[in-house]
C-alpha cells in the first residue's frame, strides 16, 4: 500500500508545486506592473498641416480579393478630396493622407496594427478593415482609444450592439437584405403571383451573416401573421460537402419559397445538388449570392436562372447623380465597373471626410458627434446615409433586389424607385 501512496505523492506533488508557481508568479506580481503615462493629444483643436487617416485591409490572405476592392474605394474617395487641395477646415485647405496597412486577414494583426496606427503613427481617424470578425476585433481598439472608426466591411449587428460610441458602419444590417427581399415577395403575393400563405424553407449558414439573415426573415414573417409560415429552419456548417440531408427536409416540407443564406462555395455546392435533385421551388434566393459572375461561371446560365439576390449596392444604380459621378470616376481610374465593395469603401471614407469637414476640426470628439448626427446624400440605396445611434452607429437602408434572367442580365427589381427591370415569379422553370 505504501507503494501506492508514495507513488501518488511523487506524481501529484509536482502538479501542486507547478500550479503554485504559476499562481504565485501571476497573482503575487500582478500588483507590481508599471502603468502608462498617457499623453492624449486627441483633444487638440489646432488645424494640422495634414489629416492622417489610418486603415488596415486584408490585402493578402483569404480576403485579399475583397481587401483590394475596398482599397480602391478608399483611395478614390481620398483622391477626390485632395483633388481640390484637401478638406476645408475653417477656411484652410488641409490635404488628407491615407495610411493603409495590410492585416493579412489575421485578427491579431488587425488589432495590433490598429493599435500601432493610433499610438505610433498618431493617425487622426480610422477607417475599417473587411469581414465582420476582423472589424469586430478591431472596433474594440478604436473604442478603447476613443478614435472615430468608420468601416464599410462589418455588417453583423453584434458589432454595433455593444454600446460602443466610436464605431460607425456603412453596411446596413443583413436583416435588411432579408426584409427587402420579403417586401418584394409579399408584393408578389398581393399580386397573386405567389401563394398566400407561403411556406418558407429557411436555410442559413451558421455565421453572424446567416443569423442576421434568419432574423430578418423570421421577424418579417411574424410581422405579417398568416402570410408566411416557416416550414423548415435549419443552419449548416461552412464548406459543406453534402447537403442532401438538408435539401430532403426542404423537399418534405413542400416549401414554396427556398430562402438560403450561404457564401460562394456552399452556394455552388448546394445549388448543384438542388438542381440535380430536380427540386423546384416557386422562388429561390441565396441571400447576396447568385448575380455575380463567379456564380454564372460555376453553375451556368441555366443554373442561376430566376435566383433572387440582394446586395448593398449595385452599379445599375449609376444612371444619375452621385452614383453616376462615382462610377464614371471609378471606371476612369480603374477601367472596370465598381461592385458593392468599392462603393461601401468609398462611402465609408466619404462619410468620415464629410464629418471632419462638418466638425471643421480634427477634434476626435467633435468628429464623432458629427458622425452620429449627420445625414448626408449618398450613393447607397435610399440616397441618404446616416449612422443612427439607435442602431449603435450602423447605417440603415434597403438593399437592392436583383433577379437573374435567362438573357444573362440581373436587373434591379426592387425597390421600385431604382428598379431597372421587372421581377418574375413564380419560377417559370417549375412545371406544376
Amino acid at each position, binding site marked *: 500500500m505504501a507503494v501506492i501512496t508514495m507513488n501518488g505523492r511523487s506524481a501529484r506533488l509536482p502538479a501542486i508545486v507547478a500550479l503554485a508557481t504559476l499562481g504565485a508568479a501571476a497573482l503575487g506580481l500582478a500588483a507590481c506592473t508599471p502603468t502608462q503615462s498617457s499623453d492624449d493629444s486627441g483633444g487638440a483643436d489646432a488645424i494640422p498641416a495634414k489629416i492622417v487617416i489610418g486603415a488596415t485591409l486584408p490585402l493578402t490572405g483569404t480576403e485579399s480579393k475583397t481587401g483590394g476592392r475596398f482599397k480602391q474605394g478608399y483611395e478614390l474617395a481620398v483622391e477626390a478630396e485632395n483633388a481640390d487641395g484637401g478638406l476645408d477646415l475653417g477656411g484652410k485647405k488641409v490635404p488628407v493622407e491615407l495610411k493603409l496597412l495590410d492585416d493579412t486577414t489575421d485578427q491579431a494583426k488587425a488589432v495590433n496594427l490598429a493599435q500601432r496606427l493610433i499610438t505610433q503613427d498618431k493617425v487622426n481617424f480610422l477607417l475599417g478593415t473587411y469581414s465582420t470578425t476582423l472589424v469586430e476585433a478591431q472596433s474594440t481598439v478604436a473604442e478603447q482609444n476613443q478614435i472615430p472608426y468608420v468601416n464599410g466591411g462589418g455588417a453583423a449587428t453584434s458589432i454595433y450592439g455593444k454600446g460602443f460610441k466610436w464605431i460607425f458602419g456603412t453596411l446596413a444590417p443583413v436583416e435588411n437584405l432579408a426584409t427587402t427581399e420579403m417586401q418584394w415577395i409579399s408584393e408578389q403575393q398581393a399580386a397573386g403571383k405567389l401563394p398566400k400563405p407561403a411556406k418558407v424553407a429557411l436555410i442559413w449558414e*451558421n455565421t453572424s451573416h446567416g443569423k442576421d439573415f434568419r432574423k430578418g426573415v423570421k421577424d418579417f414573417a411574424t410581422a405579417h401573421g398568416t402570410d408566411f409560415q416557416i416550414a423548415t429552419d435549419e443552419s449548416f456548417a461552412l464548406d459543406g*460537402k453534402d447537403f442532401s440531408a438538408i435539401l430532403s427536409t426542404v423537399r418534405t416540407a413542400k416549401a414554396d419559397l427556398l430562402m438560403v443564406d450561404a457564401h460562394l*462555395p456552399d452556394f455552388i455546392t448546394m445549388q448543384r445538388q438542388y438542381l*440535380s435533385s430536380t427540386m423546384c421551388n416557386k422562388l429561390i434566393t441565396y441571400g447576396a449570392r447568385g448575380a455575380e459572375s463567379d456564380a454564372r461561371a460555376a453553375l*451556368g446560365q441555366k443554373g442561376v436562372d430566376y435566383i433572387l439576390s440582394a446586395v448593398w449596392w449595385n452599379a445599375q444604380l449609376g444612371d444619375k447623380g452621385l452614383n453616376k459621378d462615382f462610377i464614371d470616376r471609378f471606371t476612369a481610374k480603374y477601367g472596370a465597373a465598381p461592385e458593392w465593395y468599392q462603393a461601401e469603401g468609398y462611402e465609408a471614407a466619404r462619410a468620415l471626410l464629410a464629418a471632419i469637414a462638418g466638425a471643421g476640426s480634427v477634434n476626435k470628439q467633435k468628429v464623432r458627434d458629427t458622425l452620429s448626427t449627420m445625414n448626408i446624400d449618398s450613393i447607397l440605396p435610399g440616397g441618404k446615409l446616416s449612422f443612427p445611434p439607435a442602431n449603435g452607429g450602423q447605417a440603415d437602408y434597403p438593399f437592392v433586389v436583383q433577379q437573374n434572367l435567362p438573357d444573362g442580365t440581373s436587373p434591379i427589381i426592387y425597390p421600385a424607385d431604382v428598379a431597372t427591370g421587372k421581377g418574375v415569379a413564380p419560377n417559370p422553370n417549375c412545371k406544376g
Partner: protein
Amino acid sequence: MREALTLAISAILLAGFYAAMAYGLGLIYGVLRIVNLAHGGIIMAAAYLTWQLFDRFGIDPYLAIPIAVVVFFLIGVGLYLGLVRFLPRGPAGAVQSLLLLFGVWLVIRNIVYLLFTGNDQAIQTRYATSSAGILGAHYSVTRILVFLVAVVALVALHLLLTRTYLGKAIRAVAQNPDSCTLAGINVERVYAFTFGLGTALAGLAGVLASTLFAFNPSFGASELLKSFVIIVLGGMGSVLGIASGAVVLAFAEVFSIYVVPPYLTTAVGFVLLVVVLVLRPGGLFGQRVLR
C-alpha cells in the same frame, strides 16, 4: 421511409467520393507507416490541375483523370526520392514525417495561391447540374460518375495489390521490410512506387472533388481530416477496409441529421475518430498500436 432510402443512396454516393479520398492516405500509411499530411494539398493541387486543363484546353475532368494520375504519380515519386527517403524509419521518423509533409502541404498551398490567387474556383461542365433517377429519386450525374470511378479505382487497386507481382511485393514490404530485403526485393523502389501510387490516388480524388465542389488553396484540409477518420474507422487491413470506413462515415454524417443539428454533422466524424482510436486501437491500421 422513402426519404430514408433517398438519403441512404446519396450517402452511398458520398461514400464513393470519401473512399477515393482516403485510398492514397491509407496505402501510404499501410506500407511506409507514414502519415502523409500533404494528402490534402495534393487533392487541392489536382483540383486546380483539372480546372486548368478544362479551362484552357477544354479537357473534360473525367478525361483528365489519366493525366492527373500520371502527373501526381511522378510528383509522388519525386517527393519520396527528394524528401521522404531521408527520414529515419521507426517512431522518430514517424513524427518527423508528419512535420516534413505538413511543410510540403504549406508549400503547395502557397504555390497554388501565387499562381491562381485565393479565389474560389469551380468547374462548370455541361452535365454539372444534370441528374439521373434512381428508385424514383434524382441524383446528380456527377455524383454518380464519381461513385463509379471510385468503385473502379477500388477494384483496380485491389487487383493490383493481390494479383500482380508488384502488388505482392508491396504487401510483403508492408508486413516486414527487413525480410524483404533479404528476399531480394528492392524495398526502396517499392517504397518510392507506393508513395507515387498513393499520391496519384490523392490526385484522382482531387479530380473528382473538382467536379463536385468549389475549391481554393485552403481546400483539402477537411478532406485530409476525413480521410483520417476513414482509415481509422476501416482499419488499414485492406482497400476494402477503407471503402467500408468511407461508408460508415458517409452514413454517420448523412443520417446524424436525425440526431444532431445539421451544423454538427462534421463534428460527428471527428468524435468517431477519437472514440474509435481510443476504444479499438488494436484494430486500427491493422496492427497493434499499444506498445
